[in-house]
């Protein structure tokens, strides 16, 4: 019965001051699938992604119109609890950004933010989250160590773990591998495929092989427009739009 999209975006316009960064963008994110956003630099992928958990609200002068429905509810409707929204729709950033706290405190952060005081429960969830991000075996003996001392790919997986701890429904990832080497990238990709069983993932990537490898649906964006959106296989093998074809075959620009 997973036919309803978890997120459905329609006619989304977004302005940074006078500049229109998104133009009438549509998108449907299916639950427990990976949706990839591809397109050249500056086309609005990050902007669209950050609209999904309202991180753009932090930038002065941003205006949004159109609608983004999360399980049928408009997330830009007045009275929306943005903190709750961001718990349901979590985000992993391009550069790993663990807090300058211990590994344990990083993962427990979201729980403490949510007001969880029961130490045992926190401990349990920290362990479960680190396991889910494939970090538990390496890190279980040094949970008190500063997270900033970890290698980058572990930092990035720690950021995933810290997100999993708050049990989001959707995970947004903005070029999560761009700061990582190929081996670390492969590990994060495997992790994403593993997480797909429980979570809905939207990923922005510059790497077309990556999109082809891991995503179920893809959207190709250009200059703020969604040129083509559909099943990844279709986008990469039989794109309907000439511009998509040029891009996926590497003839762009």
């Amino acid at each position, binding site marked *: 019965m997973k036919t309803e999209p978890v997120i459905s975006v329609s006619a989304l316009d977004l302005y940074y001051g006078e500049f229109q960064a998104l133009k009438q963008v549509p998108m449907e994110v299916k639950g427990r699938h990976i949706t990839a956003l591809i397109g050249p630099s500056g086309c609005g992928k990050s902007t669209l992604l950050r609209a999904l*958990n309202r*991180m753009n609200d*932090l930038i002065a002068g941003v205006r949004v119109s159109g609608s983004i429905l999360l399980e049928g509810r408009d997330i830009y409707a007045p009275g929306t609890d943005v*903190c*709750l929204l*961001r*718990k349901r729709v*979590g*985000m992993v*950033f391009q*550069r790993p*950004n*663990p*807090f*300058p*706290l211990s590994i344990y405190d990083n993962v427990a*952060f*979201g729980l*403490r*933010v*949510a007001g969880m005081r029961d130490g045992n429960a926190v401990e349990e969830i920290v362990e479960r989250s680190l396991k889910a991000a494939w970090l538990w075996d390496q890190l279980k003996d040094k949970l008190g160590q500063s997270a900033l001392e970890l290698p980058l790919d572990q930092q990035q997986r720690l*950021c995933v773990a*810290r*997100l999993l701890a*708050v049990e989001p429904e959707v995970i947004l990832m903005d070029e999560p591998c761009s700061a990582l080497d190929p081996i670390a990238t492969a590990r994060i990709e495997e992790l994403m495929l593993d997480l797909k069983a429980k979570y809905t993932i939207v990923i922005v990537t510059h790497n077309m092989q990556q999109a082809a490898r891991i995503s179920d649906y893809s959207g190709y964006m250009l200059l703020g427009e969604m040129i083509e959106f559909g099943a990844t296989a279709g986008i990469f093998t039989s794109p309907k739009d000439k511009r998509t074809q040029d891009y996926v075959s590497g003839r762009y620009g």
Partner: protein
Amino acid sequence: MNLNGEKIAKYALMTVAFSAVASLLLIAVFIFKEGLPFMFKVGLRDFLFASDWDPMAGKYGIYPMIVASLWVTLGAMLIGAPLGVAGAIFLNEFVPKPVMRVIKPTIELLAGIPSVVFGFLGVMVLAPWIRATMGGPGLSVLAASVILGIMVLPTVISISTDAIGAVPNSYREGALALGATRWQSVYMVTIKAARSGIIASIILAMGRALGETMAVIMVAGNTVKIPHSVTDPVRTLTANIALEMANATGMAREALFATGVVLFVVIMILNGVALSTIKGRVRRK
């Protein structure tokens, strides 16, 4: 010709720089030379931990002044540190950047207000108010703490603001993206990330409060007595030097230099700790 000119300029500058450093060193050496022998003559116990200060009678205990300096400095920190850190957080997190660019230099300018002006305010406004509402003479530990607490605000705010401003935005975004409120992101992440800078600002402020003289003489009451309440008048180490120097000769004069040595050492230690916490933070980045 031109080359010669450059050489002359170079040597002139070197001489100036050298004499500046040398004169500072000489002052330090002089203070120690005058003060240290005294400490050994009288004995550290009878100097630092005796309660009678009566140079006429050969009694040189500065313990009441040490206690007074500690109380007044701690009091100033109790007032100045929270206010200053709160101000720095407010400036960074809740004030628009353009406004901040005006407010911060303004606050730093406050550091230039002569201390006698603060002291005057204390005498005219604060001390009478304390006398009326809490009793005692008004000139007191409390009055000195409040005045000093305000005087150190520019130091605390300025250095803490820089420390908080240097916290990468990605930490804030990370916290907000996990559903933290603005305030939670401030106290759970930003303050922790800026911790060493904030601590350094407080330690530097402590050094300033401990060393301040004019304002303290004006508002602290200057009685040589171990205080029992915040409304008691006290005499700090710095005030003691300033008040007694006019008629100090012989041993009394040496005692004042020895008091200077105590202040010198404590403030050097505070500044050293502050500098090394700031440096430590830079190294870790």
